[in-house]
């Protein structure tokens, strides 16, 4: 029984590990490239913490509702090679995630960018617990994310250097066999990798690899490089699953109104006085 379980586990993991997947995806009609279209979603706990972690309690007044699920992590080797100052900063991020602090000389705001409904950045947008849709054209690809209505435009026809910094970065795509390789630069320093406070600077450079691993699975890998924060490049990876539920549809999650009390609540007129 035990050995049978072990064998099936190895078999299940093998296609994901293989460098050149045996699976050949259907082509985008009229082209030589695999068709990555669809409504996709990660099944990980990485949005809470990209590293391995045990379950954590949420705010006690909500019981088990907002507790954090345990997760095996998505970072290869489970180590994020922070420079010493940056590791301290990561811890501070987490401690002050919901404390109003003044970081820009103007606003008093909690630090956590997801709580504030900021566009989530890359790669985080791909492992938030929300679906996103890939619409693959022959010259460009749109990746539409439900969270914060963030969108990415991936240019396949002409690679251009990032003209300006942004939350979702500037994406140039190319095909490496059946793998879509997206080079993302032009980030600002305002997004995090997770709720644990893992962060980067504006020098972030992400190279994503999107590989069809089965009719309903994309294997996703991102190489993270940021010489201002990390001592070496590192990788994270996880599978993306196609949403197969019958009525699955890309829906709106415009969270700005949900964040306003947190962001502006202290500026609200006090009533009843």
């Amino acid at each position, binding site marked *: 029984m035990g050995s049978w379980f072990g064998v099936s586990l190895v078999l299940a993991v093998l296609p994901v590990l293989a460098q050149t997947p045996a699976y050949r995806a259907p082509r985008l009609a009229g082209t030589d490239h695999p068709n990555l279209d669809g409504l996709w979603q990660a099944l990980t706990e990485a949005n809470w913490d990209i590293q391995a972690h045990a379950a954590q309690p949420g705010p006690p007044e909500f019981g088990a509702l907002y507790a954090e699920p345990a997760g095996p992590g998505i970072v290869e080797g489970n180590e994020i090679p922070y420079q010493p100052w940056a590791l301290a900063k990561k811890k501070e991020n987490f401690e002050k995630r919901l404390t109003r602090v003044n970081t820009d000389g103007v606003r008093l705001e909690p630090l956590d960018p997801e709580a504030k409904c900021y566009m989530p950045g890359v790669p985080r947008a791909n492992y938030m617990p929300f679906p996103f849709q890939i619409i693959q054209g022959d010259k*460009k690809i749109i990746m539409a994310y439900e969270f914060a209505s963030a969108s990415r435009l991936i240019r396949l026809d002409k690679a251009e250097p990032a003209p300006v910094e942004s939350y979702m970065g500037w994406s140039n795509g190319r095909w490496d066999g059946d793998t879509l390789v997206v080079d993302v630069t032009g980030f600002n320093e305002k997004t995090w990798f997770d709720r644990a406070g893992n962060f980067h600077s504006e020098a972030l450079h992400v190279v994503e690899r999107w590989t069809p691993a089965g009719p309903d699975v994309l294997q996703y890998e991102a190489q993270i490089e940021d010489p201002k924060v990390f001592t070496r490049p590192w990788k994270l990876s996880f599978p993306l699953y196609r949403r197969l539920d019958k009525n699955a549809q890309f829906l709106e999650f415009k969270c700005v109104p949900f964040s306003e009390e947190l962001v502006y609540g202290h500026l609200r007129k006090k009533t009843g006085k």
Partner: protein
Amino acid sequence: MQPILIAIASLMALGALAQTHGKTPWGDPDLQGSWSNATTTPLERPAKYAGREFLTKEEMAAQNKQTAVATDKRDTPGTPEDVNGAYNGFWWERGWSDGRTSLIYDPPDGRIPPMTPQGKERKAEQARRNQTNEGGELGAGPFNGPEDVELYTRCIIRAALPRVPTGYDNNYEIVQTPGYVAILQEQMHETRVIPLDGRPHLASDVRQWLGDSRGHWEGNTLVVETTNFSDQASFEGSTKNMRLVERWTRAADDRLDYRFTVEDPATWTRPWSAAIAWTKTGNLYEYACHEDNYGLYGILAGARAQEKAAVRK
């Protein structure tokens, strides 16, 4: 026999060539690219052009000259007027006249049809709320909280659908794939993901800021029907039950013909339609708005500071 066959084959090849022009690799009409719907042609026909669909050449030139001057004028530097008008020709992206007197072509008078009694009542109520500032969307103050500020200033949506041109960032990116059309709207960086497979709309109690869109092809025209709008956003006084039908047709390499028809019996006495050219433009950029919304922060902080100052007096 053989030469005739060759002739037929080359004719067929020519025909195929003509057909693939403007088609995606999978054979749908190709609307893809970066587009701008900027134009100074107003939605409704001004009274002075009553009875006329088109401007004269001279009127069009005069209007464009006025646009060029008005978008680039400055007030005396250092004055509040100058700061208020700090957007100059570098920022504005108003486009030019398209030669018509209005974007609305139906009804033929170029005007939004009369409102129904219900519609008028809602409009009057909205005007009253704006003045007394109970959720005053037009921002007259005193800004008790973010809800008192309009949706655009709150960075929730730029405007309800259908999108008519505004001062800047009138940019859209269309990407197609078999079974879907995606329209990325530069403001507010959301993508309209439009299924073409004929599936039914969302349940009627599921409402979205940009509604729920379904598309299909009619010849070379993409037809998109949108329902399920939210009652928190309104187009020209519409209710959440407005039905929107939009049509995109490739008119030239650098131009799409865009038309919309809206109907909402609770608001207007008849459906009405407008046409807006979408012209080829350059790269779209990220319109982060909420993330750096110093404007709304300042409005609310300023209102609280004014209240404090008033108490001190």
